[in-house]
């Protein structure tokens, strides 16, 4: 099969060719000229998978837990796609992606596909690229897709919006009770896993989470996108505490203890979303957010392309030297473009 064309790649991917799948993901990541046609061709084939986000601070054992969850799904003959995200070094632009080390039990299983992703550019861009890669794995027919994200506040929230079920992993003794509140990850959790439950202090972590949960959750949160804070509404289904209370599951990922209970909780949440209409709601919410983001990027690109370079440069100078404020400057620029 010809893996250099959109139709060749699409056909091979849909036929289960893993090399084609890997290549398509690279096209998306590298934003090549094939990326958009591939997304367009595969989008209609997606929408079947249940998407699970696994997030939490570094050192809580996310990768090992993902390994344990995936094994249980494999025992139930469900195929699993995994996206493991690690940060790009801001200094070299390189990245060290080490999550596979903890997932070696899954190596060689044809029902599992693991892809490591580096955060590369901006957070907003990462969220979009992740959503696109999730869609590709979905189209490739994986039953469950697990996205493991770096444990740093803002990106968590954005990537979580691509998942139907978000598992927030905590561990005793990391001061995470406080970290979680700071990062705003409590609001996005559908399930809590308190990992390393064989360690001292596990009850204290569980108690702290229970207390936080009893304080309730807000109806919206703020997301940074291209340097702007956007309010994102939390679906009613997620807000309604009586409808779904995030369970707290104690796990020991290294031994697999609690992993079955965690998978049960994920599946319960999946059923809950399907029966309550929450899945549809999340799909619509995500479509709205996605459309807004893409539209904004598109309009920005198009507008910038229409403004003469020297005009833009002059305006930048004027704003920098306080001759004009940035809001008025933008209005002038946009009016200029609209005239053309």
């Amino acid at each position, binding site marked *: 099969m010809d893996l250099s064309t959109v139709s060749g790649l699409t056909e091979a991917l849909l036929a289960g060719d893993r090399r084609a799948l890997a290549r398509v993901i690279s096209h998306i990541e590298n934003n090549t000229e094939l990326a958009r046609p591939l997304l367009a061709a595969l989008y209609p084939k997606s929408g079947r998978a249940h998407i699970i986000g696994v997030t939490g601070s570094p050192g809580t054992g996310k990768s090992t837990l993902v390994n344990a969850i995936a094994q249980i799904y494999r025992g139930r003959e469900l195929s699993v796609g995994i996206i493991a995200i690690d940060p790009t070094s801001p200094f070299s632009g*390189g990245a060290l992606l080490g999550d596979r080390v903890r997932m070696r039990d899954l190596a060689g299983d044809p029902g599992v596909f693991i892809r490591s992703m580096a955060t590369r550019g901006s957070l907003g861009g990462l969220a979009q690229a992740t959503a696109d890669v999730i869609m590709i794995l979905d189209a490739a027919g994986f039953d469950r897709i697990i996205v493991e994200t770096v444990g740093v506040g803002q990106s968590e929230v954005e990537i979580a919006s691509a998942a139907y079920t978000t598992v927030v992993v905590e561990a005793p003794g990391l001061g995470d009770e406080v970290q979680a509140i700071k990062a705003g990850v409590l609001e996005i959790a559908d399930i809590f896993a308190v990992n390393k439950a064989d360690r001292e202090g596990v009850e204290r972590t569980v108690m702290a989470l229970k207390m936080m949960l009893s304080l309730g959750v807000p109806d919206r949160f703020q997301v940074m996108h291209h340097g702007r804070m956007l309010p994102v509404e939390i679906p009613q289904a997620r807000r309604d505490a009586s409808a779904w209370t995030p369970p707290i599951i104690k796990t020991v990922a290294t031994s697999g203890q609690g992993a079955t209970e965690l998978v049960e909780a994920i599946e319960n949440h999946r059923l809950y979303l399907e029966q309550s209409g929450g899945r549809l709601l999340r799909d619509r919410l995500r479509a709205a957010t996605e459309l807004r983001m893409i539209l904004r990027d598109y309009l920005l690109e198009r507008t910038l392309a229409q403004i003469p370079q020297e005009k833009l440069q002059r305006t930048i100078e004027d704003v920098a030297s306080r001759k004009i404020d940035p809001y008025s400057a933008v209005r002038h620029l946009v009016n200029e473009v609209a005239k053309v």
Partner: protein
Amino acid sequence: MDRKVRVLVAKPGLDGHDRGAKVIARALRDAGYEVIYTGIRQTPEMIAEAALQEDVDVVGLSILSGAHMALVPRVLDELKKRGLDDVVVLVGGIIPDEDVPALLDMGVAGVFGPGTLTSEIVETIEKALGRELA
């Protein structure tokens, strides 16, 4: 377009000593590559499968056990089986000088012993990838 070179660093065979591999992985990250580190005791099948899923440009094998003449051809075979003939393969570790020509003959792009400068490895990678692109 934001093309990043992706490198898989793997340790085939049974020796459980991966400090060298980790140092190389970090050095290659600092050179701007996306490095996927898979850990110790990898079979040739596991390495080739990971290379496929991660769609890497380069596979770096760290071998200290002396089993390189047995392991390297098996890894190359598994890569070929998956249609990954164009992946650049490098070998590092304790490799006797007399084995180097044979490894290069098999299709390995470079062999690096202890004390190799990162810049040498990077140069080999760039050259190998450049040649392939041309």
